[in-house]
């Protein structure tokens, strides 16, 4: 008897598709509500924020006023925080992605003593939350006098074990050994091969790790909270939470709620932009045609 699978026209297929759509729609709403709340809230005045329904716009469009307040409050320190966050995230993201690419390539393509052990350590490090390491990092960095400098955030963020793992797996898959050997036969040195042949083919993996490391640093709160103490060095996360604390303590900062909302919105825009810009680099298939699979 022939085995007939479901086709796009069969009733059971349409039924299961319908349920899947419903399930995904619910999940979408669940994840989108907080973002929607931020968007709606950032258009409200402080009074409307508490006086109107939270998930819809009030009649009074206060967005531009909120933005203006955001960038002028406390002599416009928010711009400073935003620049700090960009600096920390870009440097950490690029640095972490580069190190991850170097390490992943080495793990994938070279044999060396202690390879298994070091890779096991990398995998183990993936399991350890950075939060658990913040106090030791603080003690280490205070010994060398780097606490309360940008390096206090950047140096620890350059270590990104999930990136190393991703790049190892990606290099295994996307970069054939024969291609590297062809480079060697052609007389190219290892560094030359890495930058002229391997790196080009690892670009999609590099872009992925870059965006992950970038976002991780962008969203990092606890590390800068512990390691930075002057407001000038704060990233947006720590700065906004301080304003929020100020607002809830009620010491004359109640007006800050709407500014915090606008600040939250402004702080997620660059991340979304980064995702959109990096998207085209994720497209794999660059290796197609070079080696026959």
């Amino acid at each position, binding site marked *: 008897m022939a085995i007939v699978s479901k086709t796009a026209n069969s009733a059971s297929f349409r039924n299961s598709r319908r349920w899947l759509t419903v399930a995904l729609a619910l999940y979408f709403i669940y994840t989108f509500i907080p973002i929607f709340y931020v968007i709606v809230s950032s258009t409200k005045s402080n009074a409307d924020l508490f006086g109107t329904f939270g998930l819809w716009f009030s009649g009074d469009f206060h967005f531009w006023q909120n933005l203006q307040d955001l960038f002028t409050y406390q002599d416009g320190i928010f711009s400073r925080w935003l620049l700090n966050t960009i600096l920390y995230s870009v440097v950490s993201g690029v640095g972490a992605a580069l190190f991850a690419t170097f390490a992943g390539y080495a793990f994938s393509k070279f044999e060396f003593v202690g390879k298994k052990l070091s890779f096991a350590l990398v995998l183990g490090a993936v399991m350890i939350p950075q939060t658990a390491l913040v106090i030791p990092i603080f003690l280490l960095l205070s010994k060398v006098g780097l606490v309360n400098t940008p390096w206090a955030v950047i140096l620890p963020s350059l270590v990104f074990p999930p990136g190393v793992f991703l790049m190892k797996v990606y290099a295994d898959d996307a970069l054939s050994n*024969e291609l590297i*050997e*062809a480079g060697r036969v052609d*007389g*190219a040195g290892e560094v030359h091969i890495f930058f002229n042949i391997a790196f080009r083919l690892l670009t999609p993996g590099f872009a992925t790790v870059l965006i992950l490391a970038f976002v991780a640093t962008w969203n990092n709160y606890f590390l800068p909270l512990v390691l930075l103490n002057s407001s000038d060095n704060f990233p947006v996360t720590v700065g906004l939470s301080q304003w929020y604390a100020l607002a809830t303590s009620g010491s004359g900062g109640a007006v800050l709620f709407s500014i915090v909302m606008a600040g939250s919105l402004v702080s997620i825009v660059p991340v979304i932009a980064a995702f959109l810009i990096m998207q085209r680099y994720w497209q794999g298939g660059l290796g197609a045609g*070079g080696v026959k699979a």
Partner: protein
Amino acid sequence: MAVIELKGVEKSFGSVKVIRGVDLKVEHGEFVVFVGPSGSGKSTLLRLVAGLEETSGGTILIDGRDVTNLGPAERELAMVFQSYALYPHKTIRGNMSFGLEVAGFPKDEIRQRVDEVARLLQLSDYLERKPRELSGGQRQRVAIGRAIVREPVAFMFDEPLSNLDAGLRVDMRIEITKLHQRLGATMIYVTHDQVEAMTLADRIVVLDKGIIQQTGSPLELYEHPANLFVAQFIGSPKMNVLPAAFKEGRISINGGVGIEAGKMTGTDVANVGIRPDDIEISPDGTGLIHGKVDVVERLGSDTFAYVAVPGAHAVTVRAPRDSAVAIGQDVGLTFRPERLQIFAVDGTSLRLRPGV
């Protein structure tokens, strides 16, 4: 051109010995093919010569120079890989220029050399394209071109045709033969395909389990295999092997009638081998052995009959294309005793022929 010499070359991966002491000399301009089943160590041996693997023992000399501890580039060899291994982000010109650029050649000379080789390989129209825009055969030509441009002392080919479809493989085989004639360069070629080996080689090296089983010209291996392994590996269809024994000055085949053993006195005869083209089908009741026709394959140029012989494996017979042989027919099989290969218990060939 180069003379490549291997002396006691060994290679182990961990505790596994892949190459167990290989001695071989490849002469100037010679086309040598390493052939063997998978796991025989043929590719590893090539990679050892190319410098892509480090030896565990022995020495490798190129033109008398010890290159055992030198990297691939310093050996001045070129290699063509099974997967082509073209740089996918570079154009065909970029692929072919890469080695020369690394070596610091002037731009004009690079351009001139690449153009010349592209013309030789009919790639001139594709120089500005990327590898993915080319067909399999064209890509393999680019890989060969990349090797030629560098004017290496010798060429290494690692199963270069395995990824091509059957028709293209034959075309490329002929192109490689022509190329060898034109360049006169020393070439070492690895394949698991014995037809490729027979057609391309000046000399074939048959490998099994990391040991050279036999070295010789294609016809030498075909006519005088050193052992049962070579006998069965070289030639298509395979040589037929029948159990045999030495009895009172005669060699009894498959327990049946014996043939004159001539001067041969050895008692350790275990098998005889006979090529399908050396057997003739005769009417039932005649011939040296008997069987029933199991399968008949008509290829147009030839007819192959597979005859079930009691007490032995099926015997393959190459019959004329218009042979009337039919499935289920009882037949006798005859062959000239001097075409028999006789093998000892350990598989080595007993070169003495009956009647000699």
